Structures are given as structure tokens and as C-alpha cells.
């Protein structure tokens, strides 16, 4: 492997790992706080991508404006789904899992019905265009910017959860909802907040990768599934574990793709997951349930 290829794989790994972490973070927060397994989480990513395509590519809005608009809409949709469908199944993993399967089917088919089963291209915004040369490797500015935004979001979320009052409340509810509500925290509001953050993060990931890849109704399937692999590998409920597992999977996919092809790289990810579960049944940083 030449240095040039190494640098390019490195960037691709960090990019795919970062996007995965963005999606998986929301998933792990929702799972931790509400004990709700949302299989439809990848669909928020897809809807975010469609949002940017609709507002930016089709209607010529400013990219940043389109991003904010699409992310907010998906966030509101997320809260609506939480209030309407998931609320009765809080603390109840299986019914929520089943209901999310239904949501997944509906979302995917509804987008397919409205926009067709074709790939839609989102043009690169002007500010993201261009290349940077690093030690012989040509890196697109777009990918670097997306990586920076992703990292900033991950750090921001980490700080939010660890150091703000709302983050503290979220951790409290995730630890013990009954005790938290006795202390005056509104479990309803914290749950909605968690769902909002989760769907916003997934939609942001969709918006950012829209111009790099294509937008299609099935684009949420693979990252949605991978996000679950990330949280299981990292240990459910552990934010640090999610980041580490996301990077591990990103690196396996980024570096494995060149010698073996993308499909075998994905196979390797699953094999790594199964081997990890043999030795650490609760994931890398997970701890046993009380």
C-alpha cells in the first residue's frame, strides 16, 4: 500500500466511521433513555438526505439553509413518532422493535412511491469544491469539511451529555427513570429531547453525505444496520464505546475495501462483531444490566 493510498483510505475510514457514529449516537441515546429499539433510525438518515436533495438540489435553496430546514423537519417528525407511537412502549424493547419495523416499511415505501427507486444526485455546494494535496494524495475538500463537521458534532454531543444540566438529566433518566421523575425531571420531555437529538443527528449525517454519495429510498438500510452493529460492539449505553466501535468499523471498511472489496470488508465487520461477543458478551465497554 503506497502512502497515497494509505492517506486516502484513512480519510475514507474516518468519514464512514464518523457518519456511523453520528447515526449510532442517536440510537444509543434513545435506547439508553427510553429502552426503545428503533430499527427505523436509518430512515431518518435517508429522510435527511432527501431533505437536502429536495430543498438544495431541486428548489435551489442555500445549502446551509436547506440543511437546517431538512434537519429540523426530520427532528420534528422524530418527536411526533416518539409521542405518537413509541411512548406507550417505553421500557419495553420488543414491542418498540416491532413497531419500528412497521415504521421502516412505511417510510421506505412512501419515499419510493413519491420519488421513485432511482438514485438522486445532490450537487456539491460551491464552498466544498476543490482538492487538497497531502503527501501525493488528492483529497476532496468536501470530505474533509464533512469530517470536521462530524467531529465537531460528536464532541459537541459528548460535552452536552457530560457537562450540561439537560445532559445530566438524560443520564439520570437512562439510569433510573422512576428516581429521576421523583427528582422532578420530566421523563416525557427528556424522551422527546433524546428522540429529537437522535433524529437530528441521523438527518445531519444524511444531509452531509448526500452530495458525496447518492440519495435513494434504500440508502438508510445499510448505515441503519451498521449503526446497530456499532452500538452492540461498543456496548449499549456507552457513548465512548460507540465512538470507539464506530471508528473500528470505519477503519475495517475503509482499509478492508481496497484489498478485499467492500462486501468482504462488511463481512469482516460482522465477523469482528461475533468474535467480540464471544469474549465480551456486553460489547467492548458495556456493563451488565442491573
Amino acid at each position, binding site marked *: 500500500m503506497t502512502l497515497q493510498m494509505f492517506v486516502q483510505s484513512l480519510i475514507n475510514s474516518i468519514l464512514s466511521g464518523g457518519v456511523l457514529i453520528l447515526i449510532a449516537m442517536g440510537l444509543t441515546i434513545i*435506547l439508553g433513555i427510553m429502552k426503545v*429499539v428503533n430499527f427505523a433510525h436509518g430512515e431518518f438518515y435517508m429522510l435527511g438526505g432527501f431533505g437536502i436533495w429536495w430543498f438544495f438540489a431541486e428548489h435551489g435553496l442555500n445549502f446551509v439553509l436547506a440543511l437546517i430546514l431538512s434537519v429540523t423537519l426530520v427532528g420534528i417528525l422524530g418527536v411526533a413518532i416518539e409521542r405518537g*407511537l413509541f411512548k*406507550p412502549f417505553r421500557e419495553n*424493547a*420488543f*414491542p418498540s*422493535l*416491532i*413497531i419500528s*419495523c*412497521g*415504521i*421502516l*416499511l*412505511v417510510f*421506505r*415505501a*412512501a419515499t*419510493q*412511491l413519491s420519488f421513485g427507486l432511482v438514485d438522486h444526485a445532490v450537487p456539491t455546494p460551491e464552498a466544498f469544491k476543490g482538492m487538497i494535496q497531502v503527501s501525493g494524495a488528492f483529497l476532496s475538500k468536501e470530505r474533509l469539511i464533512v469530517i470536521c463537521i462530524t467531529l465537531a458534532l460528536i464532541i459537541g454531543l459528548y460535552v452536552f451529555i457530560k457537562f450540561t444540566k439537560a445532559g445530566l438529566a438524560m443520564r439520570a433518566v437512562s439510569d433510573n427513570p422512576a428516581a429521576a421523575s421523583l427528582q422532578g425531571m420530566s421523563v416525557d420531555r427528556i424522551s422527546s429531547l433524546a428522540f429529537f437529538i437522535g433524529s437530528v443527528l441521523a438527518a445531519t449525517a444524511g444531509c452531509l453525505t448526500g452530495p458525496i454519495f447518492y440519495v435513494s429510498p434504500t440508502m438508510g*438500510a445499510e448505515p441503519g*444496520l451498521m449503526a*446497530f*452493529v456499532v*452500538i*452492540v460492539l461498543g456496548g*449499549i449505553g456507552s457513548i465512548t464505546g460507540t465512538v470507539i466501535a464506530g471508528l473500528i468499523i470505519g477503519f475495517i471498511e475503509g482499509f478492508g475495501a481496497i484489498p478485499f*472489496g467492500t*462486501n*468482504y470488508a*462488511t*463481512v469482516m465487520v*460482522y*465477523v469482528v*462483531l*461475533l468474535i467480540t*461477543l*464471544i469474549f465480551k*458478551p*456486553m*460489547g467492548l465497554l458495556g456493563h451488565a*444490566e442491573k
Partner: protein
Amino acid sequence: MLKNRRLTPNMVLLVIAILLILFPMLSGNKYYLRTITTLAIAIVLTSGFRLIALTGQLSIAQAAFMGVGAYCSTLLIMNLGWNSWICFFLAGFAAALTAGIVGFITLRIKEIYFAIATLALNELFRLIWVEWDTLFGGPAGIVNIPSPDPILGIHFGSVVSFYYIAVLLLFSATAMMLRIERSRIGLIFSSIREFDTLAASLGVNLIWEKVKAFMIACFFAGMAGALYAHLQHFISPVDFTLMDSVMFLLYGVIGGLESVWGPAVGCTVMIFIPVGLRLIPNYNPVIEPIIFGGILILVMRFCPGGLVGLFQKLVSDLKKTESQKGEQEHAAA
């Protein structure tokens, strides 16, 4: 009231059995015969899903185990020329063995991990089938799968013969599931779902019992897969995707996981809905997942017991009002 009491589940089963056996003689419509054959395969798989759910686990990889059976039997028949009936059972054992290995890895921990691990497993199998094209034929799959070998001069190849094999498989699988559920093993399975720590304190080996349920379910899934391969004469990774596994979950939940009848009811309703819808002119099948997903959400939200649960509730409500009426009349007299 007396008449109602005589109508036991066993009698209903017998009537359905006779109707199913007589059906090909009454109607020669190959389309319906094929639909019922697919329906029987779906019921076998969904019953397996339900058996696993009895132990409190959700498996979202039943289609993959169906695929393991299908590929196993097809490869043994086409590459080694083994007798297809032996391969039929070997397909079941191969799927059960795979389930056993995976089960011991993933069933040690509670609930969600297993569900997600099975999800990953389904994708893992699909990718292996797609990528290992020298053995599994890649994305194009395997074509020209022969019909089962003849037994005692009876040739299998027509739609009707497949129909009977499928019905036979359905009955043996359902009978087996019924036996299991009404036996001690069934009680052990439900005890795990109800309160696993308590069950373990009473000497139930949690992992082994869960693996057992998983293996039995996957055994039948593998056999159903082998039958599917013969029926279609063609298999490809597209036949055993995650979405298919989700469909078995959907059938089971809509029918109701509490009752043995659930999978059968759920599969029948959900497979005949599209059949009916396709009669509508200018019908767009893209809308199907919306209908399916919508029904799933509604069932989960408003009658978690599924259609069978809903029916049972209606019947008991009816009986209650009847007995109340009876009491009132009695009091009046």
C-alpha cells in the same frame, strides 16, 4: 352454546386438514396452489419465529436459516448427486447446527443483543452468498435445481406434488410445535420468558433451553428452505434477505404470538391481502409495504395480542354478555 362447545380446536384443525388435502381435487387453479404452497412455507417459518419468541427472544434471521437450508440441499444434490430426500433433512440439520453455534455466542445475554446479532447474521449470510460465487453462484444464484427424486415410482415435479409436500411439512412442523408447547419443554420455554432469573434458580439451564428453541425453529426453517429451492428451481441471495426475515416477524405479530394459531392466521391474512389487491386494475405493488407496515403498527398499538388475540377477546366479551343476560333472565324468573 352446546354446539359451540363441541367445536374444539382439534376439530377445526381436522376440517382445515381435510380441506387442504381435498383442495387440489376441487380446484385445479395452479396460481392458488402455488400461493398456498408458499403460504405453508411461510407458516412453518413464522411458527419457528414464534417458538423462539416463546423463550422471550426475537430472531430476525429466519430467512437466512431458510437460505442455509436451501443452499445446503441444493449444493449437495447438484454437486454431489445425493438423494434429495436425505438432503431435505440434512438441510434442516445444517440450519439447526448453524443456529446452535450462533445461539451459544449470542444467547448468553438478554434480548436486544440477540435480536441485533441475528440482524447482522442475516446480512452476513447474504454477503457470503453474494461474494463466494464459485460455490454459491453469486448474485445470479443457482439455476436449474432439479425436482425431488421419485419415491416408489411416484414422481415429484408438478405443482400439485409440491403442494402436498408443503402441506405435509406444515402439518408435521405444526404438530411438533404443538407437542413441544404442551409438554414440559414448552413450560420451561415460557418460564424463561416470564422470569428468567426465577427459572434459572429452579434449575433451568437458560442458555441451553434458548439455544434448543432456536435450533428447533431453524431446523424447520432449513427444511422449508430446501422445499422452497425445489419449488422455485432457482435460488439467489435476494430470496433470503433481511426484509424477508422482517416479514416473518410481521406475519407472526399480526397473527398474534400468544397463540399457536397466530402464525397461521397472520400468514394467511397477510399473504392473501396482496393476492386480493392485485385484482385491482392499475395496482401499484410499491404501496404494499405501506399497507403491511401500517397494519403492523395498528395491531401493535391497539391489539398487541394480534388478530387471534382480538378474536379471543371478542369471543370472551360475547360470552360474558351472554352469561350476564342469562343471569339477568335467571334473576327475573
